[in-house]
């Protein structure tokens, strides 16, 4: 009996092994858990978000009643929402522009070898490494209405008096400036690192050849190096724009959307309506307004990179 049963099990085991030894099969088995996880907890919620936005769902009344585009129409007709949309663009592109300029400048500084460069690089990277929520509360304390260190310095320098010291986070335009500055401060080290990675990837002989052909510093910089590093800068910019356009933490912690909604951005508004007020349908609809912008940015950049590579 035994010697009859043994070959059978060996055969089925070898068949299993045979299947697992086929590259496509093993490949699919290995990639499946990751794909499933992402489909279940990114893909499914995404579809759910789309459905919420065309339903009347709220925490207090979880109804799946289909209401078409009513939510979107109501949102668009709300002047405050248009203001929020404008704020989001201003916040995103203002801080990215500031971050890019500072990043490019900083990258040029760090390109030149000098004693202590490694330490300087480690210190400059801090704003990007440290969790943004934690550094934001430090900024909040620095912008404090009464104990602001910035105001103290301005007063000590004789630029302003204590009576007309600005309330940074309590004045509409200043509050907007503050969230832009904090976000630029957070992202420019990332821009530095991206620029550095790009510039050091340009072969030295290309630069040498250009120098021999008589290209000066600016010409080398803008006609040789910049075009060569554009793909990598584009990748960095995708990250910067996507994460800023959808950001919630800086606004929530620094200004809480205030004063009177003047620093409200899409992510914050979606949170306020969908989570705090429990109006899930409108919250989801507000969040979905991010999507077309993100699509345009990501597709545009990817096409741009692909064209560069050919």
């Amino acid at each position, binding site marked *: 009996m035994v010697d009859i049963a043994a070959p059978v099990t060996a055969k089925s085991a070898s068949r299993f092994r045979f299947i697992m030894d086929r590259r496509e099969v093993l490949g699919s088995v290995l*990639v499946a858990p990751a794909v499933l996880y992402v489909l279940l*907890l990114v893909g499914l919620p995404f579809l759910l978000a789309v459905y919420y936005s065309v339903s009347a769902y709220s925490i207090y009344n979880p109804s799946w009643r289909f209401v078409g585009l009513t939510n979107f129409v109501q949102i668009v007709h709300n002047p405050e929402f248009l203001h929020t949309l404008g704020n989001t663009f201003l916040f995103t592109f203002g801080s990215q522009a500031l971050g890019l300029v500072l990043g490019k400048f900083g990258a040029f500084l760090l390109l030149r070898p*000098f004693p202590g460069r490694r330490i300087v690089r480690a210190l400059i990277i801090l704003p990007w490494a440290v969790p943004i929520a*934690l*550094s*934001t509360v430090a900024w909040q304390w620095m912008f404090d209405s009464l104990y602001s260190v910035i105001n103290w310095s301005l007063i000590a320098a004789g630029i302003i008096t204590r009576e007309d010291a600005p309330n940074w986070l309590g004045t509409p335009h200043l509050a907007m400036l503050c969230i832009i500055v904090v976000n630029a401060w957070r992202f420019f080290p990332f821009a530095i690192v991206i620029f550095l990675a790009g510039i050091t990837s340009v072969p030295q002989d290309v630069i040498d050849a250009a120098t021999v052909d008589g290209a000066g510093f600016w010409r080398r910089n803008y006609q040789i190096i910049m075009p060569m590093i554009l793909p990598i800068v584009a990748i960095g910019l995708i990250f910067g724009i996507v*994460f800023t356009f*959808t950001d919630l933490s800086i606004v929530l912690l620094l200004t809480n959307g205030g004063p009177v909604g003047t620093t409200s951005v899409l992510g914050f508004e979606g949170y306020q309506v969908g*989570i705090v007020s429990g109006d899930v349908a409108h919250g989801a609809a507000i969040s*979905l307004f991010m999507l077309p912008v993100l699509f345009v940015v990501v597709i545009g950049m990817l096409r741009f990179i692909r064209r560069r590579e050919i």
Partner: protein
Amino acid sequence: MKALSKTAGDVGFYGTVAFFVVMTTFPFYWMVITSLKSNSDLYNVTNIPFWFNEAPTLEHFKYLFEQTLFTRWLWNSLVIGLCVTAITLVTAVPAGYSLARMSGRSAESLGIGIFLTYLVPPTLLFLPLSRIIAELGLQNSMWSLVVVYPTFTIPFCTWLLMGFFKAIPPEIEEAAIVDGCSLFGAFIKMVIPLSVPAILTVIIFTFTLTLQEFVYALTFVSAADQKPITLGVTTDLVRGDVFFWGEIMAGALIASIPVAIAYNLFLDRFISGITGGAVK
């Protein structure tokens, strides 16, 4: 004359470097100095804020550890980080390997697809995810974060590992297969031991990504004893309108230090990970 202009140039250069360093580090200096000042020193507008006007004190740290849930938050973050790292490793290592070795357009699009999910913002998903979390019975629990955080750590780490596995020559596995190993056995016995540095990078980044996360934690967890450290420090040390600035800064400082160190050690890998295919 030339030496003079060189010195002037040097002064300008180092001056600019110093400006950049002050700009990036001042908020952290501010955390340190605030966390060590006594309250009477802190809340006096006539004092010079940049340095101690009274003797430095550890009272804020003492309060933080003894009177608040700070140690509990540290522990929560550690548990969340460890669990998410385990989930990420188990799924991302095989996936990264598979995507690196599979050829053809479908594998390539699958790789890009997984990477793009890293860009799907939390502010788009938190509403439906909060309902899913409620369905799972995990609302207001730190375990909801263990379930949700892999949605961004898996894509990121899969992408990172894919690049790494591509750099390992396939001949290594082929030699093992000739010696009688199965395809899967070759992956476990030959490729994994070679990938220890990459796996270490993944562990560090998964951990730091979970520490940096704020939006999901804010929306899913409101019970004070379930919060991770970043959320606890920023939202739970405020009583009504009163901010405990000394304690907040002390907590922020403690939570920042490990992340800052980890980032600096693994920065180059991080950059090559996200820029991936853009530089050849």
